[in-house]
């Protein structure tokens, strides 16, 4: 028989089976190690009974009144559920200005951050393409291998898909890439990798744009470019090598993939769609179509929600 603390513990607490008890007793009689363990158990129990831990209660008495504590709790709970009263009109206008100007500070910050950044030439030859200056982590981690596009049939509209994968603790070990579902918000985390895949029946031009909830437009492909990128008829990936690593801006974001037979610029898109970018998202979600046709463009959108990865605690 092996010496096992757990069994001894059970023996000590008299919760072991009668059968086990006998075998155990026979074993303990011959084993000095287990005898020592039992002695330790005895001493420990004695020590905890005499209770140095109970001295932690020193200074506890008198206990606070439970009634007072209950009233305080009631007040606190009620305070949380108070319905705001109707404010006078000038207060409402004030609040409205406060609410609608919330974008001002981030916009100013973004202006200062983005302007010098946008004038830099796009980084070429980096394995991982990303929107922000690469961090050490980005250079070290390599993008996941996303599934290759299967055999394709050229018929009508282009097929556009988005895949995403989560980076793992160790490099080269990414989660299985998944395809973003249409009409669903894809939940992503900063640091996730994203790749777009297409099948087009003709040589075309493509531009992938991200629209953040603050209304800022980012060009993902070609990276930081302003003009569409040429793609050949057939299947392919964007970016062709690697994947985009998402930055840590949180909240809702929409990706739009624009495909056209003619070369086009972001300026042309903005002139045509203007403030309707958001409406595009909605109409794409409402209709049952995966791609939408506007003038010369085939458009596909993906709605994502970026949030910090949270550690989920097990329920008690």
């Amino acid at each position, binding site marked *: 028989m092996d010496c096992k603390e757990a069994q001894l*513990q059970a023996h000590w607490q008299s919760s072991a089976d009668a059968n086990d008890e006998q075998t155990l007793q026979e074993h303990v009689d011959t084993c000095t190690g287990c005898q020592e363990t039992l002695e330790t158990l005895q001493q*420990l129990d004695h*020590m*905890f009974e005499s209770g140095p831990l109970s*001295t932690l*209660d020193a*200074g*506890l008495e008198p206990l*606070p009144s439970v009634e007072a*504590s209950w009233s305080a709790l009631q007040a606190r709970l009620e305070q949380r559920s108070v319905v705001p009263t109707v404010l006078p009109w000038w207060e409402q206008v004030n609040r409205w200005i406060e609410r609608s100007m919330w974008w001002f500070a981030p916009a100013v910050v973004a202006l200062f951050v983005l302007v010098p950044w946008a004038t830099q030439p796009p980084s070429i030859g980096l394995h991982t393409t990303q929107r922000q200056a690469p961090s050490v982590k980005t250079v070290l981690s390599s993008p996941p291998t996303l599934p290759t596009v299967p055999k394709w049939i050229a018929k009508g509209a282009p097929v556009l898909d988005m895949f995403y994968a989560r980076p793992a603790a160790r490099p080269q070990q990414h989660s299985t890439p998944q395809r973003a579902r249409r009409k669903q918000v894809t939940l992503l985390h900063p640091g996730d990798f994203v790749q777009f895949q297409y099948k087009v029946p003709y040589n075309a031009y493509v531009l992938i744009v991200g629209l953040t909830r603050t209304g800022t437009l980012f060009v993902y492909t070609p990276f930081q470019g302003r003009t569409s990128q040429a793609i050949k008829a057939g299947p392919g990936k964007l970016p062709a090598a690697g994947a985009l690593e998402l930055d840590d801006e949180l909240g809702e974001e929409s990706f739009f993939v624009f495909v056209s037979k003619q070369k086009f610029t972001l300026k042309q898109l903005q002139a045509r769609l203007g403030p309707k970018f958001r409406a595009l998202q909605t109409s794409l979600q409402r209709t049952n179509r995966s791609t939408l046709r506007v003038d010369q463009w085939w458009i596909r959108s993906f709605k994502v929600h970026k949030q910090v990865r949270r550690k989920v605690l097990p329920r008690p």
Partner: protein
Amino acid sequence: MQTNVDFQDVFFQHHNGVFRLLFRIVGSKQEAEDLVQEVFVRLHDHWDDVEPTKTKAWLYQVATRLGWNTVRNSNRRKRWHYESGQHKAMTGNDVSKKDLDTSIAVRAALAQLPERQAHLLMLYSSGLSHIELAEAMNVKKSSLSQMLFRSKKAFEKVYSPPIGIK
């Protein structure tokens, strides 16, 4: 699902126990009172999720976590025993010198243990049954005995009673 009337019963039933546990952890009455409120606010928010039979274990688990978080914040764990001792000296309660010294030594020992072991010993000394302990610690009842044994042994190793006290 538990009803609204029960909440008050649960509060009155467990208030003192939770308060005692929190006081043991944070060593300050004021802070313990604030945390008790927080614990019961959380219970109120999760009322429908908590199984009625496991309410006590749930409360003690949340209380221990909150208590430890408070202690851990701003690196207080290192200074923990010292501060709580001082606090008590300031409150002017009738605390014997011997108890005060012992409690300081106990806190110093607990602060050296891995958090989970200290956590378990706190709950153990609060008089939870083995089933409740296992629930509150999220372990099987079978592995609890061993965990408890090891925690006790670890405590005994680091605990040195103040001079003149055995």
